[in-house]
């Protein structure tokens, strides 16, 4: 059967792509951020997951607000990036995992999550930046990726309790897949940040650190927040916490924190990198 071997939280902001494209990793501004990554890369290279389920939000590349899926899942064998409008380099295609994707889609709809199912889906920096962070130089062609896209742009958007439940349902779906596959789950997004309005620039370090703690030990406590709560406490785009919560929903039993690096600011955001392992299901 397929097994989830662990989960990772990471930022996905476009400024990271620019920093990597321009070789700025060791500059004083970026070093404290990038220094967090080697242990996570080592873990990935040692554990060699076959598949990454990646929670992210589209920022206006594939989806526009003419039709905005609440939850969308990719079921393709390949995904492409494209011009996003402001000049981060377009990256090579990302490999998909159609069979497991369809299995998850079937299982989710059965489970009450009426997904938008995508056989073609342009993937933006929300998905590509984390992959390049984990396998620099765009060396992730060997890993199969299943994109799960959550609306974090337009209210109404799914509430934390719902995204947590989505993660739990995906966890069950993976476990019920017959093929022996090792799956890692990425929850990507800025932590506290607000890009728009006179309140632009707020970062709530204390709240971010509390969220990282709770993501390890008591994720259900985070589901008490509404998206408006998150906007108020962590900034208008603080709702991206939903992707981290969804990732955590996929994990079961005792969850162990193997690594953490919180750093703020990068660009306008708080960044929380965390590597988690959980109790593996009985065979």
């Amino acid at each position, binding site marked *: 059967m397929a097994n989830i071997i662990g989960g990772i939280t990471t930022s996905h902001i476009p400024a990271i792509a620019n920093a990597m494209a321009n070789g700025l990793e060791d500059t004083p501004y970026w070093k404290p951020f990038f220094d967090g990554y080697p242990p996570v890369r080592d873990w990935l290279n040692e554990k060699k997951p076959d598949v990454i389920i990646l929670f992210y939000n589209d920022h206006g590349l594939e989806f526009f607000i003419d039709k905005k899926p609440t939850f969308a899942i990719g*079921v393709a064998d390949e995904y492409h990036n494209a011009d996003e409008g402001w000049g981060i380099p377009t990256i090579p295609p990302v490999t998909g995992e*159609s069979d497991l994707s*369809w*299995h998850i*889609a*079937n*299982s989710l709809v*059965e489970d009450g999550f009426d997904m938008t*199912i995508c*056989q073609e889906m342009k993937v933006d920096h929300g998905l590509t930046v984390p992959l390049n962070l984990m396998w620099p130089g765009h060396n992730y062609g060997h890993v199969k990726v299943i994109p799960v896209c959550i609306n974090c742009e337009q209210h109404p958007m799914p509430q934390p309790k719902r995204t947590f439940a989505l993660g739990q349902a995906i966890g069950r779906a993976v476990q*019920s897949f017959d093929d022996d596959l090792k799956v890692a789950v990425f929850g990507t997004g800025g932590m506290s940040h607000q890009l728009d309005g006179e309140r632009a620039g707020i970062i709530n370090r204390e709240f971010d650190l509390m969220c990282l703690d709770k993501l390890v030990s008591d994720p259900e406590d985070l589901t008490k927040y509404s998206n408006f709560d998150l906007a108020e406490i962590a900034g208008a785009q603080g709702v991206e916490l939903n992707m981290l919560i969804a990732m955590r929903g996929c994990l079961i039993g005792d969850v162990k924190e193997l690594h953490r690096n919180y750093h703020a600011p990068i660009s306008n955001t708080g960044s929380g990198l965390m590597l988690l392992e959980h109790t593996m299901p009985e065979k």
Partner: protein
Amino acid sequence: MSQTVNIPGTIMLDGPMATKGYPLNKMCYSFNNAAARNEFKEDEEAYYEKFKLTEDQRDAMRKRDVIAMLEAGGSIYYLAKFAGLLGLSVQDVGGLQTGMSTEEFKAFLVKQGEV
């Protein structure tokens, strides 16, 4: 999890079928545009190539074999656009699939509607 059921004479568009049928359905979806319909009529083979249809799909298209299109992953909503391009009605398509004439198929529909 509910298992896919086998209903005789019925081809469900599920995950594997949707994956298989994607090029065929994408091509038929393009027939929403008059320019695409004209391009297809001018050179069918080139149009199949443009959408990378599988050999089975090309063969079904060439033979106008609706059942074979369904077996190759076609979704009836898009195949209907191809039927429209050929000037066929839904009853014509019904006839083609059931081996009836269009008139027989229409009579079959009427009979089922009777109390």
